[in-house]
C-alpha cells in the first residue's frame, strides 16, 4: 500500500477534481455548525441536552481526534465550515473558480507567519475549557466568533490566513498531521521546476491558487497543507499525488523544525495532562476552580497552568536534553537539540490526547442520540431517539484501548527521539546516542506514567 496514490485511482480522481463532493460535505458541516450556534444561543442551558455541546464536544471531537487526525491528518480542514463563508466572500463565489476578488487581499504580516498566535488561541480556549465544554451559550458564542473572525480575516487578508495563523484547532491538527498515513505531494518535482506559471500557487480556470500559501513542490511535511485539493485541480500536468505512506513519515525525515511548533508539542502534551486531571480526575475542587472563570482561584489555576505548560514542561525536557548531552559528551548546541528533539514528543502527545478522549467520549456518546433528536432541548423528537437514556458504552474495553494507545505513543516517541538524535546530534555513534536518548526516554516514561495514573 505504501506509496499508493489515492488521487490516481479512477474513482477518486473525478471526485477530487470536481468541486461538488467537497462542497456538499462542507455545506452539510456548515448546517450542523449553524445548528450548533442556534442551539447554543437559544436552546436549553443544560449542556448534555444541547446539540451544541454534545455534537461539537463529544461527536465532532471524537471524530476529529480518534479518526480524522490520526488517519487523515488535516482531512477535517478540507471540509471545515468555519472559514468557508469568509472564503466564499473572498472569492466572490461558492463553487467558483472565479478571478474576481472581494476584500483587501492584504498579505499576512511577516512577523506573524508562524503558529504562535495559534498557540495563544489554543491556550485561551483551554483555559476557559471547563466553561466552554459545559455551557451551550459559551460554546455558541465561541463558534460564532470563530466564524466571524475567520470571515473578517478572509476579507482583510489574502487566502486562508485564519486557518494557517489563527485557528486554535488548526495548530495542533497541523502538528499531528505529520503522523498521518496520508500525504499530498507532487509526483515529480522536475515537472514543477520546469512549469513557468506555477498554477498551483497562482490558480487558473480550474481552481484557486493554494489557499494555504504553500508551493506543493516544496512540501516536506503535512503541517501546512490543508488538503483543500485546489492544486489537484490546477495542476495541468496531473502531477499531484495523495499518497498512502507509513505512519509518521514526516517525523522520520530531517526537515524544517521550528520553535513555535516545538512549543505546540509541549502545549498539547501539557494541556492533555491538565485536562485528564481536571476532567477525569476525582478532585472536585479542581473542577470547581477550573469552572469558576474570573474568580481568583481560577486565576491561580490559569497562572499555574500556563507556567506548567509553557515553562516547567519545556524546562524539564530541556534539562533532560542537557543531561543527555552530558552523557553523550556531545558538543552540540543544547538549544538546537532541544528544538529538534521536541518533535519526538509528537506521537506521545497525540496518543495522550486519544487516551484522554477515550476516557470521556464513549462514556458520554449516548448523549448524542437525544441531542440529535431534540437539538434545542425543547421537547422535540425529530428522529425518535430523544428518550434514549445515558449509558456509558464499552466501558470495559476503554482502559485496554487507553493503555495500548499510550504504550504505542511512548514506543513511537522513543524511536523518533533515537532517529532525531542520530540525525542532528550524535551522528552514527551508538553509545553516544544511547546516552542522549536515555534521559529523554525517561522524560517520556514519566509523562506516560502520569497519564496512566490519571486515566487507567
Amino acid at each position, binding site marked *: 500500500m505504501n506509496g499508493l496514490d489515492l488521487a490516481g485511482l479512477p474513482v477518486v480522481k473525478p471526485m477530487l477534481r470536481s468541486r461538488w463532493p467537497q*462542497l*456538499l460535505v462542507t*455545506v*452539510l458541516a*456548515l*448546517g450542523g455548525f*449553524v*445548528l450548533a450556534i*442556534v*442551539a447554543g444561543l*437559544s436552546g*436549553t*442551558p*443544560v449542556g*448534555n*441536552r*444541547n446539540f451544541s455541546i454534545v455534537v461539537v464536544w463529544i461527536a465532532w471531537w471524537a471524530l476529529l481526534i480518534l479518526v480524522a487526525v490520526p488517519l487523515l491528518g488535516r482531512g477535517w480542514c478540507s471540509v471545515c465550515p468555519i472559514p468557508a*463563508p469568509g472564503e*466564499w466572500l473572498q472569492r466572490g*463565489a*461558492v*463553487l*467558483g473558480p472565479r478571478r474576481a476578488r472581494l476584500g483587501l487581499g492584504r498579505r499576512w504580516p511577516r512577523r506573524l507567519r508562524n503558529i504562535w498566535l495559534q498557540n495563544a488561541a489554543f491556550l485561551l480556549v483551554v483555559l476557559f475549557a471547563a466553561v466552554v465544554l459545559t455551557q451551550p451559550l459559551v460554546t455558541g458564542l465561541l463558534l460564532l466568533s470563530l466564524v466571524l473572525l475567520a470571515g473578517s480575516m478572509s476579507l482583510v487578508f489574502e487566502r486562508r490566513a485564519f486557518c494557517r495563523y489563527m485557528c486554535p484547532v488548526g495548530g495542533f491538527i497541523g502538528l499531528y498531521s505529520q503522523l498521518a498515513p496520508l500525504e499530498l505531494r507532487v509526483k515529480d518535482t522536475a515537472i514543477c521546476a520546469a512549469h513557468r506559471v506555477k498554477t498551483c500557487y497562482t490558480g487558473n480556470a480550474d481552481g484557486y491558487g493554494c489557499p494555504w500559501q504553500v508551493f506543493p513542490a516544496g512540501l516536506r511535511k503535512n503541517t501546512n497543507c490543508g488538503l483543500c485539493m485546489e492544486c489537484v485541480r490546477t495542476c495541468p500536468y496531473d502531477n499531484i499525488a495523495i499518497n498512502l505512506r507509513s505512519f509518521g513519515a514526516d517525523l522520520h525525515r530531517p526537515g524544517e523544525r521550528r520553535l513555535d511548533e516545538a512549543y505546540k508539542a509541549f502545549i498539547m502534551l501539557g494541556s492533555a495532562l491538565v485536562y485528564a486531571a481536571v476532567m477525569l480526575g476525582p478532585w472536585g475542587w479542581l473542577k470547581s476552580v477550573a469552572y469558576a472563570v474570573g474568580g481568583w482561584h481560577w486565576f491561580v489555576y490559569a497562572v499555574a497552568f500556563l507556567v506548567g505548560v509553557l515553562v516547567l514542561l519545556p524546562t524539564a525536557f530541556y534539562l533532560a536534553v542537557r543531561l543527555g548531552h552530558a552523557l553523550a559528551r556531545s558538543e552540540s548546541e543544547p538549544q538546537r537539540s532541544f528544538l529538534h528533539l521536541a518533535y519526538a514528543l509528537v506521537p506521545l502527545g497525540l496518543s495522550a490526547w486519544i487516551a484522554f478522549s477515550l476516557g470521556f467520549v464513549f462514556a458520554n456518546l449516548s448523549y448524542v442520540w437525544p441531542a440529535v433528536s*431534540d*437539538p*434545542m*432541548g*425543547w*421537547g*422535540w423528537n425529530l428522529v425518535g431517539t*430523544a428518550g434514549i437514556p445515558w449509558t456509558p458504552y464499552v466501558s470495559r474495553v476503554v482502559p485496554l484501548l487507553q493503555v495500548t494507545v499510550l504504550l504505542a505513543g511512548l514506543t513511537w516517541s522513543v524511536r523518533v527521539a533515537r532517529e532525531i538524535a542520530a540525525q542532528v546530534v550524535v551522528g552514527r555513534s551508538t553509545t553516544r546516542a544511547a546516552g542522549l536518548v536515555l534521559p529523554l526516554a525517561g522524560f517520556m516514561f514519566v509523562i506516560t506514567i502520569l497519564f496512566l495514573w490519571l486515566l487507567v
Partner: protein
Amino acid sequence: MNAERAARWLVLASIVGVPLAVAFARWKGPNLHDARVIEIHGQMPGAGGWSPSALRVAVGETLQVRLTSDDVVHGFAIGRLGWPAIDVNPGQVTETSLTFDQPGRYVFYCTRWCGPEHWRMRGTIDVIGSLTDPAEADYPLYMTLDLDLDAAHPATVVPAERPKAERGTSRGPMLGADYLTPEFYRSQSPADAWLSLRSDPALEDLQDMAIWDLVAWIWDRNTTPEALREGERLYRVNCAACHGEGGEGDGVMAPALKSDSLTDFGHATVSPAAFNDPSSMLGASPALLHGKVIRGGMGTGMPYWGPIFSEDQAWAVVDYLWTFQLDRDS
C-alpha cells in the same frame, strides 16, 4: 453559471435555512401564545426558581403545562391537592395538564432537593371563579390555643430512658377519659402530660418511668400506622435534608444553613432543630409542632409548609416526629 447559483442556494439553505427551520418548528409547536399553554422553566432558587412563577386560570379550564429544568433535577407538585409529583428533568420537557374545580390561590413547589434554598422554589396559581363548595375558614390549632411558636419550649421534666408505649398498654385503658381525648393529646407537651398524670392520685403507685410509658401510650393511640408511614415519607422527602435522616438536626444541608452563604434572601438561619433532643422536644405540644411546620419561621430559616401539606399530611408529619422520642406500640 447555473452550478454556481445552485451552490449558492445550498449555502443559503444551511446558513439561513437552519435557523429559520428551528424558528418555524418552535412557532408551529405547542402554541405558547395561547394563555392555556404554559412553559415553566425550573432553576435553582438562587438562579431564579420557577419562571413564570405566577399563573392564572379559570375554574374548570385546563392548563397545559410544559415543564423543563435549566439546571438540575427538580420536581413539580401543587400544594394540598395530593396529585402525584412530576419529575422535571434538565433539558427535557414533561407535559401535564391541570384543571381546578375550586377557585383560590394554589402553590406549586419543587419536590426534589436542589440546594439549601430548595424550599423557596415555589410559585402560585390563581384560580378564578366562584366558590361552589364554601368551606369554613379554619384557624390552625396553634392560633386557637394562642401558642407562641417563637418561644423556647424547654421540657420541665425528661425521662431517664426512652418511654415505650408498649409498656403502658396494660394501664393505659384505665386512664381517665380526659387523658384520652384528641384535644388533650394535641394541646399538651409530653412533659405537661407527664406532670398531669404524675399529680393524678389514681396513678400514685406508679414509678416515674411507668408514667412516661403511659404518655407514650397516649401519643401512640392518637396516630395510626398509615399516618406514621405517610409522615415518614413526607419527612424523608421534605425534612431530612436539614433535620437529618435520624432527626439529629445534622442533615446534609445543615452546614450550609449555618454558614453566611444564604444571606441573599435577607434571612438569618440557624442550625435545624434536633428532634432527638428530649429537653426541647418533650416540651412541645403536637399543636405547637403543627404550628411550626405550617407557619415556619421562628427566626431559624424553617420553611412554611402550610400551603404545601394538607391538614392530614401536616399532622402525619407531627405524628412521625414523636418517633424520635417515644417508642410506639410495635
